[in-house]
């Protein structure tokens, strides 16, 4: 769907809808520890926000991530996850041992911080992968 097919109605609806989707995605990401939710769901929400924009406004959507950027982002997102594990290894812990962070806070809080970090990585990866697959599926002109 690189061509724009939106009408003014779709366009306006999209403008009102996307901020709420993004805020809700943020909420699911941050609140994932306390209720059902977390990185995967938040990533899906962010991804859908971008895909909606691509569907309605085509290639020149205001909230757009190109396919190539998405591939790189997907790698970086998962890399963040792995890198947090490597960080704990540098601080003399085992891989992904969040308690090893040399921060002046309670053990449980350090774990919560680590969980938040990896959830952010997961979110970026899922969002970018959804966009990349969508981009690959809808790109016809190369054929």
């Amino acid at each position, binding site marked *: 769907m690189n061509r724009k097919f939106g009408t003014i109605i779709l366009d306006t609806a999209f403008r009102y809808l996307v901020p709420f989707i993004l805020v809700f995605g943020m909420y699911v990401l941050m609140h994932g520890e306390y209720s059902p939710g977390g990185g995967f769901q938040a990533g899906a929400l962010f991804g859908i926000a971008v895909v909606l924009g691509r569907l309605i406004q085509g290639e020149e959507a205001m909230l757009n991530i190109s396919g190539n950027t998405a*591939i790189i982002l997907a790698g970086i997102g998962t890399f963040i996850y792995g890198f947090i594990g490597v960080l704990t290894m540098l601080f003399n812990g085992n891989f992904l041992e969040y308690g090893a962070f040399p921060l002046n806070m309670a053990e449980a809080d350090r*774990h*919560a911080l680590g*969980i938040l970090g990896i959830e952010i990585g997961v979110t970026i990866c*899922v969002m970018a992968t959804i966009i990349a697959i969508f981009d690959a599926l809808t790109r016809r002109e190369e054929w």
Partner: protein
Amino acid sequence: MTRLLTFLAIGLMSLMLFITTSGLPMLFDPNSPAATHVSPRYIEKSREETGSPNFVTAVLADYRGYDTLGETTVIFTAGIAAVLLLRAARKHSDCLPGGDEE
């Protein structure tokens, strides 16, 4: 013929599966091994050990966080696999060099 044999194998396998369900613990049994061996630790301690009141998140992101790294990698793999197949194919002979061009 091969199909018939395969169906026979599937039939035999189903039969065996049905007969051996009696070895499984009873449904929803609070005293089953799955409920008493490893999981109590997650329910009792995850709040103080990981700071997460959601036990599933605690298991997913902390106790078995390494599995989740693998899981995220699976998503990444699927993403780049789809892009390789759909976008990065060559225009004329869509294969890696050395593959079977037609």
